[in-house]
């Protein structure tokens, strides 16, 4: 398994773990508090920061010493393909947030639909990249 493939696994696990923690915290509060008063911002910022830190540290740990951290043109093609294929989740999240803002939904729901869009983008992109690493990548015809 290449360094970049390991890094993709680390990123996927970090994203899913952070979002799982966020959901556990916020859904617990939502059960007893109206959405407009749920303090979601600290949990959102801490879990986002935590996932970034976990990804960076994880990549350092799985990379091993110098030469093991090499990447090449195939890694870059797979990265671009994954980002291209998963971009619709960002578009969907932004579009949903726009509609919700126009409909005057509470900030809580708008922020969370955007966050969900980012998480789905990251998770879907990672899945596509891992699929490309495992099953192959061929140029579009």
């Amino acid at each position, binding site marked *: 398994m*290449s360094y970049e493939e390991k890094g993709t696994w680390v990123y996927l696990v970090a994203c899913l773990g952070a979002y799982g923690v966020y959901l556990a915290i916020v859904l617990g509060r939502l059960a007893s508090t109206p959405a407009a008063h749920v303090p979601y911002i600290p949990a959102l910022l801490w879990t986002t920061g935590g996932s970034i830190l976990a990804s960076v540290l994880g990549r350092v740990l799985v990379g091993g010493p110098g030469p093991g951290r*090499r*990447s*090449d043109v195939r890694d870059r093609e797979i990265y671009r393909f994954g980002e291209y294929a998963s971009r619709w989740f960002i578009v969907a999240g932004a579009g949903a947030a726009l509609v919700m803002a126009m409909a005057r939904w509470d900030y809580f729901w708008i922020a969370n639909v955007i966050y969900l869009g980012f998480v789905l983008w990251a998770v879907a992109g990672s899945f596509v990249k891992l*699929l490309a690493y495992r*099953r*192959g990548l*061929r*140029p579009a015809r």
Partner: protein
Amino acid sequence: MTKPTRITNSIRALRFTHGEMTQAQLAEQVGVTRQTIIAIEQGRYSPSLEMAFQIARVFKVPLDQVFAYPGGT
């Protein structure tokens, strides 16, 4: 995306006829990772034309002795 490439290659055979060259040695000479050489050998990745020429140059053979593109559908 997930279909194997139709391009076939003789890299594995060429490695063995060139002093049992390892995938790591070939990767080093081409300037890619060993995983990319493995993916090309297994038909999971189609290299760029430039990389294909680089691989052929390592073996000192014409491109069509390394890669083939069978006709038909």
